[in-house]
């Protein structure tokens, strides 16, 4: 009698223990596949123990609790703590809510906190609930986060009323216990497989495998009592039941309510998938090299003027171009996760008596299957005292990014020539970005070609010369300045010097008004000034022939700087002197050699024109111009030196 009572008590205790361990094991299986903190994915790779017979030799690798239900999983102390806290008896259910928590896209400093986590108490009545990271609630409030319960697991031992749990003889109870144990093993095997087939597992796997910061995370919450889901929430969810296992005092039930369409949530979040750059945003010559800056005059010459145009960041409004669409996803993997989440093909559903399948998708996603390494996600930490995890979505608002991009833009006119050298539109020419024109650019030229000279800041000069396209080279090296960069740039100093040259010539110019020539000071001066400017530039051009370059470092300039009509050699000498003094322009000499004849012809033409103009002028004007020419020649001499 006493032994029977003892045996039954022992059997009942064993039954109680089996049920308790079943709760723990089922909780562990669910949590380790929904929480990045603990996972058996890597743990299962340790094939040290495969049979109980070898357990003696490798008992250290098999913990006592692993042997329960013959399923060795990674230990999860938190699962046990949760179980102890939320359950006082085996008849209290265990509810596990798997919450998909997503941070809003436009999070700001207020919501950004490394320690801000996740789970908030949905129910104030749930006194028995225990939350993961409950001590790290979001300080900014629940409004900043988007949470949705995507799974709800129920593990409970339904009591069977009106039946004595301790009834039955010893043999039947033993048989019951072993049969029960076997059935629970089978149930837990099914549970282990099922948790990996549900949609939430894909999210968990991607979060774990990526190891990168994502804007969403899975947060399991264990409690013994939760508020029922709303009708709206439950409509979108499917239920899967595991066949209950009868125990001596009731039956163990396991079921899950899961969201079959997690892609809806990911689409609502509108998280950018991946960084996208507009390749032609910052005026890439490949985008539209022929676009002109609206403030620049339209050239009537050859289309070769157009390649100098460049679409700048400030000019996109003019061209009605869309602003740069740069967006960052939290991580490349997040994009992949999103793709997976939004892929309906991953939303499989159990068939037959279970809810229907979700709609299939036409996309199949091929994945990397190398998941042997366990890569803990920094997003979620389920330990009682977790360290702050940098669960920061990498999202840069468009406004900030656009400003950064704009800041990186070069100045509108500060464009170095070498940068444009390789663009296909430039076709080997030393084409330069356009410059705003000056008044003097167009005056009485028979042939026009567009020569672009880069300008710095405000000093922009656009010269139009009536030379052939091949002649562009000689004007491209107008001046190399003290910064001695190989690029061609017109600084203010250069413009000033050029301005000086506009008014005065270092040596007699065909358009200089000589003594005795009568000219109308008012009407002719501007024309002559323009012509003179052209001539000055001609003079400053690199020597046309290499062999013409002479050493004019000596003080032969006063001879050159005479009012008389310069001879051909003197013109070339002046030009050569100009370049002898300037560094890094020797290369231009070689290029200009073939255009000597054309230049001479042009000079002759100017001379003829000058004679015609001067024939109508007066002496007074001529004397004034002559004195001014002397002054300019002196200053020119200084600049050359």
């Amino acid at each position, binding site marked *: 009698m006493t032994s029977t009572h003892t045996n039954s008590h022992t059997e009942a205790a064993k039954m109680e223990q089996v049920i308790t361990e079943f709760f723990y094991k089922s909780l562990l299986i669910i949590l380790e596949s929904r929480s990045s903190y603990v996972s*058996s*994915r890597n*743990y*299962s*790779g*340790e*094939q*040290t*123990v*495969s*049979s*109980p*017979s070898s*357990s003696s030799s490798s008992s250290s690798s*098999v913990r006592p609790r*692993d*042997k329960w239900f*013959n*399923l*060795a*999983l990674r230990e999860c102390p938190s699962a046990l703590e949760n179980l102890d806290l939320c359950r006082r008896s085996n008849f209290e259910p265990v509810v596990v809510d798997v919450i998909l928590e997503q941070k809003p896209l436009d999070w700001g400093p207020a919501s950004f906190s490394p320690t801000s986590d996740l789970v908030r108490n949905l129910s104030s009545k749930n006194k028995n609930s225990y939350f993961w990271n409950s001590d790290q609630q979001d300080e900014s409030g629940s409004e900043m986060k988007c949470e949705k319960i995507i799974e709800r697991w129920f593990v409970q031992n339904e009591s069977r009323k009106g039946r004595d749990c301790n009834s039955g003889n010893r043999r039947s109870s033993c048989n019951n216990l072993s049969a029960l144990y*076997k*059935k629970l*093993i*089978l*149930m837990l*095997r*099914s549970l*282990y*497989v*099922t948790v*990996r*087939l549900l949609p939430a*597992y*894909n999210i968990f*796997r991607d979060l774990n495998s990526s190891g990168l910061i994502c804007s969403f995370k899975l947060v399991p919450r264990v409690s013994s009592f939760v508020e029922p889901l709303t009708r709206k929430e439950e409509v979108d969810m499917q239920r899967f039941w*595991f*066949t209950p296992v009868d125990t001596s005092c009731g039956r163990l039930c396991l079921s899950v309510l899961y969201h079959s369409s997690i892609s809806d949530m990911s689409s609502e979040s509108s998280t950018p998938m991946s960084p996208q750059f507009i390749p032609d945003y910052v005026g890439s010559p490949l985008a539209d090299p022929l676009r002109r800056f609206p403030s620049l005059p339209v050239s009537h010459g050859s289309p070769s003027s157009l390649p100098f145009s460049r679409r700048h960041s400030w000019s996109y409004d003019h061209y009605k171009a869309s602003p740069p669409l740069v967006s960052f996803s939290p991580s490349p993997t997040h994009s992949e996760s999103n793709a*997976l989440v939004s*892929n*309906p*093909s991953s939303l*499989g*559903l*159990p*068939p*037959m*008596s*279970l809810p229907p*399948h979700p709609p*299939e*998708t*036409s*996309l*199949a*996603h*091929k*994945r990397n*299957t190398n*998941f042997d390494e366990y890569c803990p996600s920094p997003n979620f930490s389920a330990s009682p005292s977790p360290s702050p995890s940098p669960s920061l979505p990498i999202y840069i608002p468009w406004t900030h990014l656009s400003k950064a991009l704009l800041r990186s833009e070069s100045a509108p006119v500060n464009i170095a020539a070498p940068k444009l050298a390789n663009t296909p539109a430039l076709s080997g020419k030393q084409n330069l970005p356009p410059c705003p024109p000056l008044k003097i650019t167009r005056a009485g030229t028979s042939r026009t070609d567009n020569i672009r000279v880069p300008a710095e800041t405000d000093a922009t000069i656009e010269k139009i010369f009536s030379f052939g396209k091949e002649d562009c080279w000689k004007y491209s090296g107008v001046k190399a300045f003290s910064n001695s960069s190989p690029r061609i740039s017109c600084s203010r100093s250069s413009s000033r010097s050029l301005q000086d040259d506009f008014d005065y010539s270092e040596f007699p110019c065909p358009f200089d008004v000589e003594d005795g020539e009568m000219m109308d000071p008012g009407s002719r001066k501007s024309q002559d000034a323009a012509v003179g400017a052209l001539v000055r530039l001609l003079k400053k051009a690199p020597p046309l022939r290499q062999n013409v370059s002479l050493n004019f470092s000596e003080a032969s300039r006063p001879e050159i700087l005479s009012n008389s009509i310069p001879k051909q050699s003197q013109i070339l000498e002046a030009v050569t002197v100009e370049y002898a003094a300037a560094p890094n322009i020797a290369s231009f000499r070689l290029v200009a050699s073939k255009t000597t004849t054309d230049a001479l012809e042009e000079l002759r033409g100017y001379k003829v024109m000058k004679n015609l103009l001067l024939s109508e002028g007066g002496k007074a004007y001529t004397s004034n111009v002559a004195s001014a020419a002397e002054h300019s020649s002196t200053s020119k001499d200084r600049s050359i030196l």
Partner: protein
Amino acid sequence: MNCEVCQLKELEVEHFEIREVLRCILHTIVFHRALGLVRPKDVDLELFEITYVQCGDVELEKKIDEKIDHFISWVEKHPNKKSQICLSFYEVKSKQPSWFTNKTERLYWEQWYINLNVTQHPKHHSSKSHHTKLVVDPGESATEERSSRRAMVEASLREVLFQIIKFVNEKKDHVPPISEGVIYFPYEITIPRKFQ
């Protein structure tokens, strides 16, 4: 003891998908019948968005792969035919020893029939493009078609896995008791004669 039979839903797969599909299904079934101490191993399929579970036994994995190779070679000899592979679990019972025989017999207590319809990849119909002004890139349509087909196969495979889970949950009584030191029940993988 009754022999429980489970006919799994037929899967229409291509030749290159056979190995993955069979691995997934066979290991899932064996995992449910490996009631000894196991350390489960998660395996992600390469072709589909499915993670299945192995019981972690290297020998078992090797044997299953051998059987799959044997099945694939059979399929190659019999193309475009519906095929079936059978996974059976049995108990070894020794017959009454006699003077002449000391045989043991196998008592099958469970049989799983995996039905496959191995299809060839459909050829691209290029003739359609000749009669249309709009030139359609054949590559894109083929890719979409392939993706769509892949998704269908994945959904079907998922159905089959849940079918296995449901069967395992509903029928537990016929499973023999767990023997000490045995990880999984004796099994055999065969191709039924009618398909040979």
